[in-house]
């Protein structure tokens, strides 16, 4: 377990650094999917195999593909020097982020969480589904949250269509009559 933990932690964090520091945007997207794969491995270790499957399906599959589409539509060939992809706050941003990370890590590991032991997660998919739908004891609020999330997804789909729709006579017109 410790070996798997070390491997997954290294994979996740190194891929995250690759997202931030790689020159090519496409390489950033691929590093991002590697980091998400590491996180899904953590979910398997944490007794949430269904959530790991969701992570692979949604993040590694869907979000990466959508971002690659975004890159395909918006990138022009350009000089890939660090001066052109990173703004002037490189070291200031590093200091801020390192401060945030060190502070969070210190607080989270200095806190006494009481009697913690692994194995409390809903390993059974049936129990997990009852939690998610708000049927089980103490999870009633998830009935409301589930419905709100479904409405939010519908609104997001409509908003994405409306925002990115091409208006008549604006922008690039590749000879398509509307």
């Amino acid at each position, binding site marked *: 377990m*410790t070996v798997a933990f070390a491997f997954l932690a290294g994979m996740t964090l190194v891929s995250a650094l690759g997202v931030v520091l790689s020159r090519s945007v496409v390489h950033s997207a691929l590093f991002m999917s590697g980091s998400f794969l590491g996180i899904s491995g953590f979910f398997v270790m944490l007794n949430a195999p269904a959530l790991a499957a969701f992570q692979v399906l949604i993040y590694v599959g869907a979000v990466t593909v*959508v971002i690659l589409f975004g890159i395909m539509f918006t990138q022009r060939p350009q000089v890939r020097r660090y001066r052109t992809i990173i703004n002037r706050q490189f070291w200031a941003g590093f200091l801020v982020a390192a401060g945030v990370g060190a502070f969070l890590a210190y607080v989270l590991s200095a806190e006494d969480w009481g009697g913690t032991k692994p194995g409390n997660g809903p390993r059974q998919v049936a129990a997990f589904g009852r939690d998610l739908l708000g049927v089980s004891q103490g999870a009633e609020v998830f009935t409301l949250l589930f419905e709100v999330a479904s409405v939010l997804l519908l609104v997001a789909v409509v908003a994405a269509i409306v925002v990115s729709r091409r208006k008549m006579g604006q922008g690039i017109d590749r000879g398509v009559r509307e």
Partner: protein
Amino acid sequence: MPQQVQQFLHALVAAPPLNGYLVVGAFLFAIGAWGALIRRNAVVIFMCVELMINGVNLTLVAFADYLPNAGGLGVSYAVLVIAIAAAEIAVGLAIVLAVFRSRRTVNVDEVTSMRG
């Protein structure tokens, strides 16, 4: 087999402590914040925001598995967070596409029309 080797093997197969997961989540959040601060490309900034969301998700699921009184509900919260992040990425990329169509750039330093 010597005592030390046995202890080492025992530590190797034991479950890692809760703090390990929390520290990995905190560092993932920090790396994402760094990228969101320093990169110029709007699409890469979205990727870094996704990294931050994943760090928080890891923390939620670790708490759900390790704290006895959490009832495992952190996993359900993580599903909701994934749904909301997917909605955010859809709307955000639509906005990036609209900005690129009118400005021919996705560089956030050059899109300054809302600066006061």
